[in-house]
């Protein structure tokens, strides 16, 4: 099994356990919030369990760059500015932001996270080890 397939399989296991979903519902492109029904507290638990399984440390900022929200250059009236979207894309190079760009509300940012993003973060962490 290729490394990222192994990572996917472990992440799938974590998501099945945390979100009480069926394994076949967890696909690479599934979004955690809309497709798998995760709430913010679930995301926290999922990160903890992924860290435990892979013995790595993930900052929430690496998945949801919330520091952008505090900078007026990047966030105004609860929405990310074009500059903010650019920085967001650079921080999450694998994320597909097309749908989010149509209405870049801060509260929707966690909705862009997909299973693929989790796999990518774990893969890059393991490569750094």
């Amino acid at each position, binding site marked *: 099994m290729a490394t990222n397939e192994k990572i996917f399989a472990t992440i799938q296991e974590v998501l099945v*356990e945390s979100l009480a979903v069926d394994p076949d519902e967890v696909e690479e492109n599934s979004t955690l919030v809309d497709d798998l029904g995760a709430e913010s*507290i679930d995301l*926290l*638990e999922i990160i*903890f369990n992924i*860290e*435990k399984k892979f013995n790595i440390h993930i900052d*929430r900022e690496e998945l949801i760059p919330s520091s952008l929200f505090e900078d007026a250059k990047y966030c105004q009236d609860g929405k990310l500015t074009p500059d903010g979207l650019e920085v967001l894309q650079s921080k999450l190079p694998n994320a597909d932001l097309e749908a989010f760009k149509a209405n870049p509300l801060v509260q929707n940012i966690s909705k862009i996270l997909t299973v693929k993003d989790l796999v990518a973060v774990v893969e890059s962490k393991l490569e750094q080890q």
Partner: protein
Amino acid sequence: MNWYWIDRFTLFESGKRAKAIKTITRAEGHLRDHFRFHPVAPASLIIEGLAQTAGLMFNEATNFEKKIVLGKIPELRFYQTEIVPGDVLEYTAIAEYVKEEGSMAEVSVRRGEELVAEGVLVFAHLGSQFKSKQQFADGDLQDLVRAYGMYDVGVDANGEPLKDPALNV
């Protein structure tokens, strides 16, 4: 309203683990109806005791600067539910993760040697968007941890006794 669901801490290692005891007494009002002539401690309040043990451990670990709330119970299994007046429960919380945005603990309940329940609790550390919401009235949280004996048994990361901030004034 009193919302004290542990009696006191018996062990408190900053950011690592905490143990607390809770004695079930016939005088607890809800036991009159739960159940009539057959008092049994409700599992929900045993879970609250675990949440207070773990939650206060995380409050102390984050210098009482966060609003910490029980967010999720991913696992919790009861092996014994017949908990009755006179029983002394020991709650144990072991910190697995303490982060800026949340924390997670492994928890267990024992009655003597007997394992009553075990599981995992996840806490959310509420951020600045909840700044205007007051979780405790001024001083109440410190009064609570003092009443629970956190400063009587607590030690910091170096094993030195925890300092009660009220004594530093």
